[in-house]
């Protein structure tokens, strides 16, 4: 028994505190990854148990039942049906909420039917007194043929008891707790005869679920002879669910008593305010304002600090490391590159902090409830609000958050328009361009013109999303009854630990994900900017020296002339020149062209690229990027490069253009087709080009 590593799978409905139980069991011993090939988050953790045992815990995505209706839910049933999977659990823990027992137990009875040892956790036991709930645990354990751990993840009660149950998992019964096959006796009898060694419920799931089972399973269980028409299967599934509920209702009638006199109506009162026809919206918009305030204002302090620190670090590196190619790469390629990612951390963290609090508290469901009717007018769902808000951090997790939208058309439209919302990757681009071209004045004595411009760009992004949704709603011919159901969980105070872990994880994932791309691009860029093809690049120094025009130059002017000529003849310079004819009507020169090309991978690379371009061969200059950009002038006319028309044109271009390879990749994954990302790219970038063109031509 000792030194054994027990594999545990944590399963449960959303909003049962499953993740709190996971956090409580594993502390910070967690790793977050993805299931191979799909973008469903995979959370694993380990813990030490009594009697020298160890356990590996897999936190499976929240699901309402084993009848999978989304990618996340598929993961749960694919794992539980595949005994050969490395992660196949020795013991399953089903987490339920004491206030939602009836519904939460449905999933439990399904898991139990799979004949896996299963522990039933009844969470939020601290709420029982308030709600007047009493449970007859021995009776329930007998009826459900399992052991029950009554715990409170908030008050940290009952965890040791649960750990002991995990250690003793082999004592658990693997018998199903009800006989669901009575819904169609002859059918299930013949199924049992055909595959005597398999669990009946497992066979049933293989027949009814449209998921990828491993090959082994498909061969072992060739159920083709037992196929039935879909309508018949659906009818049986309904019967099965009703059967399960009858069993649960019967058991709870004896095993649970609720003294309704004790229950307070605090939740109802809160709901009457938070979903009120006026106050509901006022409170929601106040919260939105608070979120934006934190992104624009509060995070600017740490961001300024990060910006300066990296500029200093870069200068320090070039002054103190031995001179050479490697030092140049570090001080001009890698450090500015990393700085370009790190600077996002405050904004991303604030956004995830708010989203996490709103979701944990149960408020997010009320927002969905409030907004559904309005959003439907644009072909969206109330549930599109969550992706559209998270889109202000990053479109990638936002698009993944569309998975719970039941209606395919509403979901598709949400996926297609979400990238219009102003993600945090646009912020550095906006911030630097606004600082360069929008004069800092006060309007009506209170509003800062630069702040207003930023606000305007957010509104533009949101308006573009809503308008295109409206258009898509008219164009797309996808039929289907609009189905919509959302759980309205009880309000809860967010658990601090859960929020912190969530923010840390999400921020880390974003920084590492985006960081890898940006770092790689910065290094490649530096090479492309530091080397060039053939004689023209190598001869720069000689040709500048021999040019009588530059005779009177000081050493400094002379060096800067050489480096700029070198850049122009480098690989990247040639690429920039190549696209110049296309972008010059928008007011961009070849250097901006380079930044446009590289920032196709991710928008924020724009600033990093200009940083790299302007600091190549000029690392002693520890000026910030902004000042360097401000000093850029056209070699012939002496006009500022980043003047008002070009700046506005660039701002608008970045507001609309699909400059994000990651978003295209996720759209492809989620829609399972290249058609939609291509449409997204062509539509968004086409729109961006036209708008930027018009703006520049009018303003110049």
């Amino acid at each position: 028994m000792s030194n054994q590593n027990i594999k545990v799978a944590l399963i449960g409905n959303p909003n049962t505190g499953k993740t709190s139980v996971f956090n409580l069991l594993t502390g910070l011993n967690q790793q977050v990854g993805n299931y191979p090939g799909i973008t469903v988050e995979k959370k694993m953790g380990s813990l030490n148990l009594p009697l020298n045992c160890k356990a590996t815990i897999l936190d499976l995505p929240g699901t309402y039942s084993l009848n999978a209706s989304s990618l996340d839910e598929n993961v749960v049933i694919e794992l539980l049906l595949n005994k050969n999977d490395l992660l196949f659990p020795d013991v399953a823990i089903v987490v339920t909420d004491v206030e939602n027992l009836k519904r939460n137990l449905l999933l439990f009875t399904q898991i139990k039917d799979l004949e896996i040892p299963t522990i039933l956790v009844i969470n939020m036991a601290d709420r029982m007194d308030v709600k007047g709930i009493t449970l007859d645990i021995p009776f329930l354990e007998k009826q459900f043929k399992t052991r029950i751990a009554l715990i409170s993840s908030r008050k940290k009660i009952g965890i040791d008891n649960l750990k002991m149950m995990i250690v003793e998992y082999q004592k658990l019964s693997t018998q199903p707790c009800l006989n669901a096959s009575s819904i169609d006796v002859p059918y299930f009898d013949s199924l049992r005869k055909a595959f005597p060694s398999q669990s009946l419920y497992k066979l049933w799931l293989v027949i009814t679920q449209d998921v990828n089972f491993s090959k082994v399973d498909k061969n072992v269980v060739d159920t083709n002879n037992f196929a039935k028409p879909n309508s018949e299967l659906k009818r049986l599934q309904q019967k099965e669910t009703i059967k399960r509920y009858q069993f649960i209702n019967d058991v709870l009638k004896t095993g649970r008593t609720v003294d309704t006199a004790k229950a307070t109506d605090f939740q109802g009162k809160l709901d009457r305010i938070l979903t009120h026809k006026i106050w509901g919206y006022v409170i929601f918009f106040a919260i939105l304002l608070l979120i934006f305030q934190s992104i624009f204002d509060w995070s600017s302090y740490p961001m300024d600090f990060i910006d300066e620190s990296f500029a200093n670090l870069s200068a320090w590196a070039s002054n103190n490391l031995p001179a050479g190619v490697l030092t140049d790469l570090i001080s001009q390629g890698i450090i500015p590159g990393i700085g370009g990612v790190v600077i996002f951390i405050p904004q991303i963290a604030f956004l995830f902090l708010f989203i996490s609090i709103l979701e944990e508290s149960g408020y997010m469901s009320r927002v969905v409830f409030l907004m559904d009717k309005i959003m439907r007018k644009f072909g969206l769902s109330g549930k599109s609000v969550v992706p559209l808000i998270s889109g202000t951090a990053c479109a990638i997790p936002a698009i993944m958050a569309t998975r719970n939208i039941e209606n395919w058309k509403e979901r598709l439209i949400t996926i297609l328009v979400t990238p219009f919302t102003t993600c945090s990757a646009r912020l550095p681009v906006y911030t630097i361009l606004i600082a360069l071209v929008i004069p800092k004045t006060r309007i009506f004595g209170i509003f800062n013109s630069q702040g207003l411009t930023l606000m305007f760009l957010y509104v533009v992004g949101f308006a573009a999303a809503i308008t295109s949704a409206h258009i898509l709603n008219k164009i797309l011919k996808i039929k289907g009854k609009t189905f919509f159901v959302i759980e309205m969980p009880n309000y809860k105070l967010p658990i601090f630990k859960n929020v912190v872990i969530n923010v840390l994880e999400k921020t880390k994932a974003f920084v590492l994900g985006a960081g890898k791309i940006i770092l790689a691009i910065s290094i490649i860029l530096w090479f492309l900017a530091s080397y060039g093809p053939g004689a023209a690049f190598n001869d720069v120094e000689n040709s500048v020296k021999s040019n009588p025009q530059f005779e009177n130059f000081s050493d400094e002017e002379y060096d800067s002339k050489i480096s700029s000529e070198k850049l122009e003849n480098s690989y990247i310079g040639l690429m920039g020149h190549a696209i110049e004819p296309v972008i010059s009507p928008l007011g961009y020169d070849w250097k901006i062209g380079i930044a446009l090309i590289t920032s196709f991978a991710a928008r924020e690379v724009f600033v990093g690229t200009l940083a790299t371009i302007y600091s190549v061969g000029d690392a002693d200059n520890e000026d910030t990027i902004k000042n360097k950009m401000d000093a850029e002038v056209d070699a012939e006319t002496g006009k500022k490069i980043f003047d008002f028309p070009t700046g506005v044109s660039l701002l608008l271009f970045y507001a609309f253009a699909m400059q994000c390879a990651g978003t295209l990749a996720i759209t492809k994954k989620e829609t399972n087709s290249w058609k939609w990302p291509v449409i997204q790219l062509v539509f968004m970038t086409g729109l961006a080009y036209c708008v930027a063109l018009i703006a520049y031509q009018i303003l110049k």
Partner: protein
Amino acid sequence: MQKSIAQLRIGEHAIISDFDSNVIPLKLIEMGCLPGNSVVLIQKAPLGDPLFLNINDSLLAIRMEMAKDIFIETSEA
């Protein structure tokens, strides 16, 4: 005509009697929306839709369109 959830008044209790099983998705049934179970209309969204319900102790919101397909018996009827 049979009464449906769509006709409930705020605070009114009823028992689900029947639904059109071709239209009601399995997911809703899994949330506890099935014949014999109780239903209370807690609140309507500001524009009258969706409906915030307590079905069999589960708190959930569904759209009017779907509510029309779930039939009920009220105690006074």
